């Protein structure tokens, strides 16, 4: 139907591309202008997305064929269903405020033009994934998201760790994409189309979906959403500026995988779902515990993100993609707030990121502290806050589905969440300042605190209360349905688990981490446990593979090539023949290559002449 709505989508999608191109080509030295251009674009997109969200519930579709390879149509088009509307709004709204935050955060940065061009190109990429109506277009923007993330992580490219982290993120994501593209090829082979709507019809008509289809498509999700075993890039990605961590590695990019899985959930066989559920739940528990052994505030938050992604993955695996999407939306708000809050703290403490050197910031940065704590409580799933609705719904779903192992893992994850949240609050905001930087901390400017207040207070807290009221019910079918399935009962298992975790975990952590000053209490008591939770072994494993296996294999093959093909073939046969000819003609080929070549041409011409005459 409405063509006017599809033109709205054109604007939403291509505005940021235009802004990025302008900034990259002309505003490299006019950083301030680029910053405001990019931010204004982001707010316009948020407005347009809100308009789309409220403009009705019918699917918006639009399609054009870019080209054809044989019988394969390379299509480009939009499919805006209820999920897409919600995702568009969440992404663009959160992103707009993060843009505003960045204006303040990056004020001193010389490469602001590049940074904001990167943010805009990222917006273009992620919005493309959201609106795409076919697998190939999803893949295109999927790759572009990988690229924008690469550029933004590499923002401080003159630092070795940023160079390494950006490379790692891109390559690990590409490992996932390898499976993804094979899955796309398999869909095309089985169903003859890449279009979501057509695929859905085929899937509904088919008896069973082959496991391989879902398993391969899932690879893309494992990479982009940082699921085990491709999760290793996410924590290193904190090398980028903090707003990037907030935007990409908390709110949107990692959510793209969840969104995509929900979009193709009809292609996932039960075996695939089961795997996602188990791996998601166990990763949620493990990552939550690992967050306890990080001293860098951003790394700790990154592990927290991993844990929540595990929970979302688990929801998809349990057959509740709508719950996963809802948690994605809620998580986007409070995790963005947490990261921006961390950014504000880092900015206030003169770029100190070590939590052990902070402390007592509640008084020095009250606004930051208030929003951070509010978002933390939402993260801990305090009843009636945003995180509670979505997370407890998933835990409840696990229990009611009879998946007790998953329920146990998720409960452990809930406890871990409360533990690391309490630890973070205790170390950063309470107690005394543990360094010069923290002692002289200052509150951040309005461009940074306003987004915190809007995202944090309005959405993590009030948004939770008003989740059904503020957004028109019709366009929010996924959330409405999810909310219908859960109600607050004191005797519901998820509520019991949640309240116990909160009491034991959160308050326990507050007390426990107050016992030692300037050091981590767990590390003091049990260095061995702390070391295990630091979670370096997986990186070690990959490093071993790259250094010991891959590089040696590459060098060995290069050596073989040199020895066998180049050495034997060229020096023996290749040089042997000319040497014989050279001997016969009485001339050394090594004296003048051009002459040698001319000889060959003459021989060739003779051959040609002979051929023509003989025939």
């Amino acid at each position, binding site marked *: 139907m409405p063509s006017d709505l599809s033109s709205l989508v054109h604007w939403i999608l291509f505005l940021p591309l235009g802004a990025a191109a302008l900034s990259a080509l002309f505003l490299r030295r006019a950083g301030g202008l680029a910053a405001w251009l990019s931010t204004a674009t982001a707010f316009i997109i948020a407005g347009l997305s809100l308009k789309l969200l409220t403009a009705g519930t019918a699917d918006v579709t639009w399609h054009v064929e870019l080209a054809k390879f044989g019988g*394969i149509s*390379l299509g480009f088009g939009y499919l805006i269903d209820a999920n897409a509307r919600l995702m568009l709004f969440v992404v663009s709204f959160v992103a707009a405020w993060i843009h505003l935050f960045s204006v303040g955060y990056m004020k001193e940065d010389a490469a602001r033009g590049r940074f904001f061009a990167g943010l805009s190109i990222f917006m273009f990429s992620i919005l493309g994934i959201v609106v795409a109506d076919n697998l190939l277009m999803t893949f295109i923007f999927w790759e572009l998201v990988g*690229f924008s993330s690469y550029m933004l992580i590499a923002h401080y490219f*003159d630092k070795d760790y940023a160079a390494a982290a950006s*490379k790692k993120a891109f390559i690990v994501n590409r490992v996932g994409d390898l499976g993804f593209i094979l899955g796309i090829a398999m869909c095309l082979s089985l169903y003859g189309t890449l279009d979501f709507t057509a695929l859905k019809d085929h899937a509904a008509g088919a008896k069973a979906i082959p496991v391989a289809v879902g398993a391969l498509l899932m690879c893309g999700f494992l990479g982009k959403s940082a699921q085990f075993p491709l999760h290793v890039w996410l924590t290193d990605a904190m090398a980028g500026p903090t707003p990037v961590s907030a935007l990409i590695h908390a709110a949107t990019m990692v959510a793209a995988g969840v969104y995509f899985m929900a979009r193709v959930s009809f292609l996932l066989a039960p075996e695939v779902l089961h795997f996602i559920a188990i791996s998601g739940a166990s990763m949620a528990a493990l990552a939550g515990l690992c967050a306890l052994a990080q001293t860098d505030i951003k790394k700790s938050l990154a592990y927290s993100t991993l844990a929540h992604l595990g929970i979302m993955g688990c929801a998809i695996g349990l057959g509740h993609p709508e719950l996963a999407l809802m948690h994605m939306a809620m998580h986007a708000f409070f995790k963005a707030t947490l990261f921006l809050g961390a950014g504000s703290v880092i900015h206030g403490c003169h770029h100190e990121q070590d939590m052990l050197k902070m402390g007592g910031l509640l008084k020095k940065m009250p606004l930051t502290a208030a929003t951070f704590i509010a978002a933390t409580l939402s993260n801990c799933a305090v009843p009636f806050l945003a995180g509670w609705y979505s997370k407890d719904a998933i835990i409840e779903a696990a229990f009611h589905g009879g998946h007790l192992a998953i329920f146990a893992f998720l409960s452990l994850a809930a406890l871990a969440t409360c533990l690391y949240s309490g630890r973070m609050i205790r170390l950063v905001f309470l107690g005394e300042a543990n360094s010069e930087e923290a002692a002289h901390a200052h509150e951040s400017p309005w461009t940074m605190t306003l987004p915190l207040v809007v995202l944090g207070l309005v959405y993590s807290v009030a948004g939770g209360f008003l989740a059904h009221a503020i957004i028109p019910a019709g366009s929010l079918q996924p959330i409405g349905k999810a909310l219908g399935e859960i109600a607050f009962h004191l005797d519901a298992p998820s509520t019991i688990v949640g309240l116990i975790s909160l009491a034991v975990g959160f308050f326990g952590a507050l007390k426990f981490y107050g016992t030692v000053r300037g050091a981590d209490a767990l590390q003091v008591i049990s260095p061995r446990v702390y070391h295990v939770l630091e979670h370096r072994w997986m990186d070690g494993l990959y490093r071993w593979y790259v250094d010991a296996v891959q590089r040696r294999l590459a060098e060995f093959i290069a050596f073989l090539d040199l020895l066998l093909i180049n050495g034997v073939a060229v020096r023996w046969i290749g040089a042997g023949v000319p040497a014989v000819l050279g001997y016969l003609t009485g001339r050394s080929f090594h004296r003048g290559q*051009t002459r040698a070549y001319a000889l060959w041409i003459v021989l060739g011409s003779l051959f040609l002449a002979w051929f023509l005459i003989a025939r």
Partner: protein
Amino acid sequence: MDTFPATLLALAITAPIIVGLILLAGRDLPRSFASGFAFGGFAIPAVLGPWLLILWSNPSTTGQQFQSEGFWGFGFALNGLSAPLLAMTSLVGLAAGIKALTQEVEGRNTYLGLILFMLGGTLGVFGTNHLVGFYFFHEFALIPTFILTLFWGGEGRRPAAMQMAIYLTAGAMASLAGILIAIDVSGVDIGGATFVKVADGLQNAQQLPAATGALVLFGLGTLASLFPFHSWAAPGYSAAPTPVSMLHAGALKKFGLYGIILLGLSSLDITGGSLGTWFLWFAVANVLLIGLICLAQRDLKQLLSWSSVAHMGPIFLGIWVCGVSGKADGLDAAAFLMVAHGLSCAALFLLANAVRARAGTYRLDELGGLATRTPVLAALFIAATMASIGLPGFGNFWGEVGIFLALRAQPLWLQALVASTVVISAAYALRAVASTFFGPASEALEKRFASAPFGDLGWAERFAAFILLGASLTIGFVPSLITKSVNPVAAGVTTYSQHNAKAPAKAAPAAPAKR
């Protein structure tokens, strides 16, 4: 047919050759005069090439599928496959020419003249429909390539030029034998041996010597660096002066692929029987083994040279799968990648040379942190790298992904081996970017900057890089620019190849390698 496009085509091919002759004859021409002339020789085809492509894609000008008879009595002609290749060559030629004009070399006029010859010959390869003309123009372009590498090349140029000469001559001889046998069997008079006539003749031919397909495939494959006939390529490109590397690796090399498609795939059943099996494994080796060799490189230009060999793998596989599956999609994608690879590969050679001009070395362990001093160079290099590893937005993406999709009916392990290129190429390309541009500036670089301060990329080189990357972005955003022209030819070639594969009277009965 309208003679106007034919005139344009003839002008595009002859202009660089005539200017080249003038420069060779007038070795003492004043510098500014020679520069202006040479620029004209590079620029005229660059205007005409894309123009011809647009004319060709226009439905009112085309309408003939595989055939492209008589744009001009002289034998110049375009077809849907060669039109995009000619346009690509002309743009690579302009960029290479701009690079050459900024270089300070001994015997500058001769140097420029020879590069113009090379360009004219390469344009001629794609601008003729006659098999002998096709072969002739290739040799015409190769001779200056050897001379340029030998006299103006870099480190290790003598053995590299020697090796290249032997390989390419051997390959050319083998393919010539195959071509001549094919013409003979087809019963077409050699004076009128166009691709179409020979293919038509071979459709009805009674028997074809079994080795013909192998001679053409491996002969032309050598020129396109098919494994294991690739050893000349990496040292050859590395040792050649930059404009020559750009033209050779980007454009001239596509000669082999073009011939394999129009002669081998269409008429010689190269994907059937045991020959097809060998073809498959060699192409996979191009992707995998050469990809791994790329990972072991320690030198930026060597890496680019090797990766340009590795990127031929998917193209070969696209051609292979077209013959095996009887569907045109693989060929469409392969043709797309041929064009896109020419652009990205030339851009990388151009920019890598700019790195060397500043840092004084291609060695990755001595480079580092260049992005701080030369942000524009870094940005363009990263863009070219991203193009070459198939980032969407650049043309290479469509080619690579199209080939993966075309392989969809093949066994999964084979698809996985081929698609692993997305990981391998990202690994070596990003490693090169990181060790050249990222991290703190290396000691060697700091010392060099202190003794001989250098600036960011100059305007001429920026312009050259913009042409190449701009073209790649254009076909990345509007892929129909290429596919509209290629689709009919790909469909035609596929029909011919299927007819041949199924013909009962063939010497090698065709059981397409369904593995």
